[in-house]
């Protein structure tokens, strides 16, 4: 992970009218002969981002070709590229290379920056600065001349977030107060007060008076930046069970501390044994209500809602959802729409507006419906 973004070398290469492809400037030396075909390329590959990995190195470049009668051979070919160790995760560097090639193209078109031998010399110190600043801070702001400045920043790529459902509950992974609210877009600012780790998307939409899809997108955005995570709706009738990760509570001291701090009631402090017993008390068939009556002693100093929340966030426990399935016997009856085994109680209640109790009563009387918990 240490060298995951380190750039070993930056080079500027061009096609010399008589000498052919050459590396005009390079900051730190790398053998390039093998890569020429990927640096100064045939027309088909121009303006494409090319990453070649060979011989323990990765080379990223974007060959540019500017055609004009004024150039010898009627075209100017160049490429500004980076070289890293082959194991480097380079996808964050790709937009940088593309942007740099864009900058140089603009500079050339505006003021002949590259074709003019004098101004071209400025490239060497520019490359040095780029290499250093990108490696050290991950960003670089560099004035080139009176009217042009380069702004570059390495941005980490993240995984695409999950789809957010109406019955999902967003909960902040860090302290809400740490956020500078004005940095977020208006929709997010409007819903933020309602993101309390207990309200689900549909409820947030209703109470914040923001359209459902906008809430979904805003939360998805927060998910992307790992500011929130999703848990399920809390009810005392919910059933949970432990996962193998519950043992992390035994193994990891920092998790223990975090847990005790999170789940303890205000002004009180619980202990590891009580908390662990509570989590282990969650089993299939046991509702939260049952837990409360069986472990009332342990719950004196623990907020059960926070307990569940923490457990879900850290993967120590998981929710067992109910899925009604219509076991179709009669060919003539309509095929089931919601009772297919694909939709949980949470989802059905959210979509139809029924309460759990109502849904339970309805299904209990139907002999053709079985319920699966998973």
């Amino acid at each position, binding site marked *: 992970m240490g060298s*995951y973004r380190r750039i070993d070398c930056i080079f500027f290469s061009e096609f010399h009218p008589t000498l052919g492809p050459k590396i005009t400037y390079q900051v730190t030396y790398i053998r390039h*002969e*093998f890569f020429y*075909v*990927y640096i100064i*390329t*045939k027309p*088909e*590959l121009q303006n*494409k*981002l*090319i*990453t*070649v*990995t*060979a*011989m323990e190195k990765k080379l990223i470049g974007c060959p540019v070709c500017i055609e004009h009668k004024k150039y010898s051979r009627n075209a100017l070919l160049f490429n500004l590229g980076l070289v890293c160790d082959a194991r480097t*995760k*380079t*996808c*964050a560097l*790709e937009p940088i290379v593309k942007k740099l090639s864009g900058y140089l193209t603009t500079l050339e078109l505006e003021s002949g920056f590259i074709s003019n031998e004098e101004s071209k010399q400025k490239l060497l110190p520019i490359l040095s600065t780029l290499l250093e600043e990108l490696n050290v801070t991950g960003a670089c702001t560099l004035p080139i001349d009176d009217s042009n400045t380069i702004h570059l920043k390495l941005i980490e*790529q*993240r*995984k*695409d977030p999950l789809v957010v459902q109406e019955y999902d509950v967003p909960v902040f992974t860090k302290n809400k107060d740490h956020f500078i609210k004005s940095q977020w877009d208006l929709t997010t600012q409007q819903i933020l007060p309602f993101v309390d780790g207990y309200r689900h998307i549909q409820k947030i939409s209703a109470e914040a008076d923001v359209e459902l899809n906008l809430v979904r997108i805003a939360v998805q955005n927060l998910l992307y930046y790992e500011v929130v995570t999703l848990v399920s709706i809390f009810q005392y009738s919910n059933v949970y*069970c*432990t*996962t*193998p990760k*519950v*043992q992390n509570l*035994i193994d990891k*001291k920092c998790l223990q501390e975090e847990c005790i701090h999170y789940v303890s009631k205000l002004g009180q402090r619980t*202990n*590891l*044994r009580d908390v*662990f*017993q509570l*989590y*282990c008390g969650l*089993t*299939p*068939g046991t509702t939260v209500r049952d837990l409360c009556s069986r472990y009332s002693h342990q719950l004196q100093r623990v907020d059960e809602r926070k307990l569940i929340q923490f457990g879900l966030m850290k*993967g120590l426990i*998981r929710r067992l959802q109910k*899925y009604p*399935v*219509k*076991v*179709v016997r009669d060919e003539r009856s309509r095929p*089931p729409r919601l009772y*297919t*085994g*694909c939709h949980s109680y949470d989802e059905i209640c959210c979509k139809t507006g029924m309460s759990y109790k109502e849904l339970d009563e309805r299904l209990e009387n139907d002999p053709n419906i*079985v*319920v*699966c*918990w*998973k």
Partner: protein
Amino acid sequence: MYKQWSVDLNSDAKLMPKQVESSLQPNGEKTSPISVILVSSGSRGNKLLFRYPFQRVSENTSSATSKQRSPYVLNTSGDSVEDQDGDSREQTPLTDEQLVAGFSDSILATILATKSDMCGKKFELKIDNVRFVGHPTLLQPPHTIQANADASVINCMHNLSRRIAIALQHEERRCQYLTREAKLMLAVQDEVTTMTETDGTPQSPFRQILPKCKLARDLKEAYDSLCTTGVVRLHINNWLEVSFCLPHKIHRVGGKHIPPEALERSLKAIRPYHALLLLDNEKALLAQLPLDCSPALVRLIKTCSAVKNLQQLAQDADLALLQVFQIAAHLVYWGKAIIIYPLCENNVYMLSPHANICIYSPLAEQFALQFPGHDLPSMLAKFSLPVSLSEFRNPLDAPVHEAQLIQMVVWMLQHRLLFQLHTYVCLMVLPVEEEPGLWEEEPPLVTRVTGRSLSTPSALSFGSPTSSDDMTLTSPSMDNSSAELQTGGDSPLNKRMTETLLASLTEHERQAILRVPAAQNPEDLRLFARLLHYFRGHHHLEEIMYNENMSRSQLKTLFDKFRSVLVITNHEDPIISLFQSPPD
């Protein structure tokens, strides 16, 4: 470990077991190649010899004979898991065809024909959204191409390239196979070029190459296989076999693939008390094996059973335990079997959270065919709450019916619908206020014992098949000093042993344990002390039973006696649950 195998399983597309839940997931495409390309580089320049699928319009190619170096390239596109460059975004909406069709033959020849210095090592080239990966060899460098692919998928493709390279290299040395095939390919290309010039109708030369050139057909087959089953089996020059499987295609659970590294880690953690569950019936599996496969493998498949643990299997099949482990790992890697705990009365099963319980799923259909009169959702509903096998069966039922119920459970296990719950125990005493170092002294005890019998056995600790004893179910711990504790009585030796074992705990913990009424009984206390290292939540009941040669009831009684200092929970075994659900 797997590269040394002389046994290479074949998988005919027809016999290949169904992809689990693939109808709901679009990920099938992401581990398939986009195309296959063969490029050569020599003194006369670079040539594109063959590519598949064909482009619609052919390019003009100049003639040149291939000499020494001939790169062979495979195009593939991969998963949306984080790729080689750390990119984990979704693939672009461009179709695969569009991505590669954009590259003309001549440009491919240029960029993929590498210099000699790059030979013998992995080579990769990414152009916008298309990735080429390969292994230039001085004679036959294969290249594989992927875009946004998981690093392990790329490595696997590279592996395939390399295997084909080695085979081609061998055949080239023996009878100039590649040179001959390349000549054929170029000749056909020339022919087609000439025809195009006279007729004016553009044609793909590669289509003409296929019927004439075995190597081209092999490459096409590799591509087709990778795209469908993920299993490749070729005979280069009708002689040398190249087998390969892409675990990412084979090991898919709930739509996500199991990374080979995770798979390998799990396989290393298999214990002798685990069992091997075949995913196909015995006959079908045996039919898929090549004629020259090892007799040990055949014997193992024939003797294998869901109720037999690996140690018993070794005994019955007359093989060394180590060998059984290796063959089992091989079968699992090729997607032909999974690891479970052997079926028995007391096993408790529950519905897997990743199980597809939709009535419209293909699994429901298959189940109904296999077990007429029963439907899958009803059966699955019975496992909503954890239920033991003995509870699931009704002792009043006819034996035939009982047997069918067992078969259903096996079927559900094979299709990753159920997983087994195990009991885990943890030592947890009532706390003293502000005791920071509660666990500080625990680790040394645990690490001391893990070096012992709990790891994968070597041939030494389990004996060879020729040794007369030791293939029984007795635990490997018989030879350690705790055996002396079983001599009974309250001898000073035993007392000292107990004290030593308890010495690694904190004073507070020791006191708490000694305060338990059952601790007054020296036998019980001794047993508790001896088993102390299992009470960290990482060893389940069955493992303790196996290692210490104790019965379930003995252990349960002990847990009950010391319940005030223990916390018990049930969950799946994280080691083998990999086969039931995708990792996070």
